């Protein structure tokens, strides 16, 4: 069927911009529409800088934190529940005050954020690998393989991630019977988060794969005789990564929130290795007795981290969506 693009104007504009001489890689990135839309949105720039600072603070926690909250030698129960420095009875050593065991809250937040971030990244990567592989296979193979994978995804999608994570956690606790819970908690969290979030990747990748599969460049590769696995990895995968990046960013925020929630509910990280959620859970007990800072400061740190990541994800989604440009 003959086809004439309705958007001849856009096409013409693009034609003209392609007349520019080919520049180096860095120059091309700096000149790309993506980068320009990034600079245009001031909020996004602020969010990117803030995210970077938060990441640095948490990954460099052992060097930048004023105290080591895990070093029992430096902790004194006499310093417990000291308020932040602008309040009465404060201690200049503890800017944001201390928790119930006398640990410096600011340092605790840095270390806690580090644990939250590591769990977030690991679970996002695990979920992405699982989801992308299954989505590629389902979308490319079609037929029974596809219906099986997607039925599983559909059933799972009817349950919110938090519920699945809770269930997996409960089952794991049942299997390991409470032994070495402190040791396993970290891995159980990653597995349960990954198993709760893979569906989104799989569905998105499957959808894009089904579109790409019918595009003529894939047919051309098949006519050349290239085997399916190579077509999937070399040809289709790079073309479906755009939406995956968006999901991964938004899921990083979601994973951090879910991890915090699980820890808050007492089924995540134990108090000996506190993540932000654990810190808030500890602080929650002291909320009514006036020691509000123990819960509120870690909570604000969590909100700040998640908000910035979400801002980046939001911008990325709009910037990569050609329809909204």
């Amino acid at each position, binding site marked *: 069927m003959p*086809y004439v693009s309705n958007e001849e104007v856009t096409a013409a504009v693009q034609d003209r911009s392609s007349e520019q001489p080919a520049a180096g890689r860095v120059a091309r990135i700096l000149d790309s529409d993506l980068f320009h839309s990034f600079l245009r949105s001031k909020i996004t720039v602020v969010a990117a800088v803030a995210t970077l600072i938060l990441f640095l603070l948490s990954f460099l926690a052992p060097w930048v934190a004023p105290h080591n909250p895990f070093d029992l030698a430096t902790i004194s129960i006499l310093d417990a529940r000291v308020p932040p420095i602008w309040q009465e009875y404060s201690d200049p050593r503890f800017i944001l005050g201390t928790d119930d065991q006398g640990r410096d809250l600011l340092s605790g937040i840095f270390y806690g954020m580090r644990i939250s971030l590591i769990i977030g990244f690991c679970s996002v990567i695990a979920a992405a690998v699982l989801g992308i592989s299954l989505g590629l296979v389902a979308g490319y193979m079609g037929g029974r393989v596809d219906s099986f994978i997607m039925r599983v995804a559909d059933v799972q999608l009817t349950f919110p991630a938090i519920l699945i994570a809770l269930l997996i956690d409960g089952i794991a606790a049942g299997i390991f019977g409470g032994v070495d819970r402190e040791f396993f908690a970290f891995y159980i969290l990653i597995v349960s988060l990954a198993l709760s979030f893979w569906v989104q990747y799989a569905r998105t990748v499957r959808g894009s794969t089904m579109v790409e599969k019918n595009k*003529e460049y894939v047919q051309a590769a098949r*006519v*050349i005789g290239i085997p399916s696995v190579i077509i999937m990895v070399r040809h289709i995968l790079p073309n479906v990564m755009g939406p995956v990046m968006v999901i991964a960013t938004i899921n990083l925020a979601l994973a951090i929130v879910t991890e915090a929630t699980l820890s808050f509910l007492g089924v995540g990280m134990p108090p000996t290795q506190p993540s932000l959620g654990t810190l808030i859970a500890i602080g929650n007990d002291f909320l009514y007795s006036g020691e509000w800072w123990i819960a509120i400061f870690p909570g604000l740190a969590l909100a700040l981290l998640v908000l910035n990541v979400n801002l980046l994800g939001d911008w990325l989604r709009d910037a990569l969506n050609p329809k909204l440009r």
Partner: protein
Amino acid sequence: MNVLDIKDLTVEFPGRKSVFVAVDDVDMSVDAGKILGVVGESGAGKSTVGNAVIGLLQEPGRIAGGEVFLHGKRIDNLPYKEKRLLRGRKIGMIFQDPLTSLDPLQTVESQLVETIRTHLPLSAKDAQKRAVELIDAVGIPNPGERIKQYPHQFSGGMRQRVVIALALCAEPELVIADEPTTALDVSIQAQILELMKKLCEERNVAMLVITHDMGVIADITDHVAVMYHGDLVEYGETTQVLGAPQHPYTQSLISAVPRPDVKVERFPVVNYIEKAGTPQKHIDISTHWLGKSRDYEKISGPLVQIRDLDMRFEVRGSVFPSRRKYFQAVKKVSFDIQQGETFGLVGESGSGKSTIARLITGLYDPTGGSILFGKTELTSLKNRKDVLAMRRQMQMIFQDPYSSLNARMRVRDIIAEPIKFHKLASGNAEVRQIVDDLLDHVGLGAQAGQKFPHEFSGGQRQRISIARALATRPRFLICDEPTSALDVSIQAQILNLLKDLQEELGLTMLFISHDLAVIRQMCNRIGVMRNGELCEVSDCDDLFERPQHPYTRELLDLMPSMELLSRANLETS
């Protein structure tokens, strides 16, 4: 007085780097009962003219200068509300794709009635009556019943009739039709054009038809405006402009239109738009890799023999075999392709011609019949090595230049992939050299290899596709609508290139197209397909001069007449 007058219209789209002038200082006018055609290739700004008149320019476009008058009253500077009242009431609009122009969730009646009652002071009952009359007037049988239906219950051609009825709801003085028949098949296109011409005369409406198709212009317009990159290059009576074009662009554009009535050896090179792709460096095929070691088994007789080929697709799956529904895409098709010839397959959309191409290349497995390539039966090949040996001998060029290249790969890697995969060269240096030569040979130049596909225009991308297809040194090339997404001038270049390559390399070709004129220029023998069946196979000239099958005759009759078009610069064979 003219119904529509456009004076010095300039439309700009401010971009990130510069302001893009889509329409530059354009004048034109239409009288009641007359049709003005605006013709041009992509990027000419023809749609922008229509959108500017009706006040629906896409953001961030704006009218930067000039005036638009409707019956002598200036309309381009009216406030939003008054402009809105003009739309539908005084100016009707018809869009390109009837499948997406109607709200899928509302009945045809409710869409008609709401439009009528927006513009005319009628009661619901009278509006309903008028809606039925309109549906009747656009030639939809059984209007009283069909009007209660939803858009998805109408075929494409019928939906376009509904769209026309909607445009005529309030008896507008001007109708703007933007590519009204581009999404339709030839036979439907002819009916819609006839309807538009009839309505224009009967209702004394002025019509502005925007199209890329010279056939449409020749068929129905009284006046024509030829646009090129935002400029109006020629404007006048249709017979005048088409018969004796003055401007060099119009001349080359008209000579590039493939014609069913004359067969040309080569299309005249149109170097007005895109640099015609002449090889910068000639490679000697007799000694070059491309022409060497064509170590295929010798075959006597036809290269491809297709017997009783059958293909059906499952439309609705079910656990119960009796409840499954199938679509028979190809029915008992048999034909031969001789070595060295170009065999054409022509038919409307859904006729099964592309399915045959995909069956031969192994993208689909046939449900019945046999495909003999030389002495090898393709449908029973199991051994992977044999399959690959066959794949290497046949390659395919696809329709859509925008999706047939992987956007994430450099052009060099795209072309090198088949060479490396089939291990046709001895080392990376040789592969590199071959890729450079191939790019040169299809007229792009070796430096094109470093770029990504999006840096090329549609015609250039089709050249890359051709280079990729040649990279396995095939002896059989399938071209599936290779030029139907391209502008006519680019189409002429690509067709010339294909002709040259076939001659040089002695390729056998299967050429698939919906366009009889293109088929005539390219093919030695032609098969006509309809609804999965092969109606007729005959020699090219016989088919056009002495068609046997009634369907072939019907197709030939429906073709827009090109007799108006100037015959200057044509080398006929």
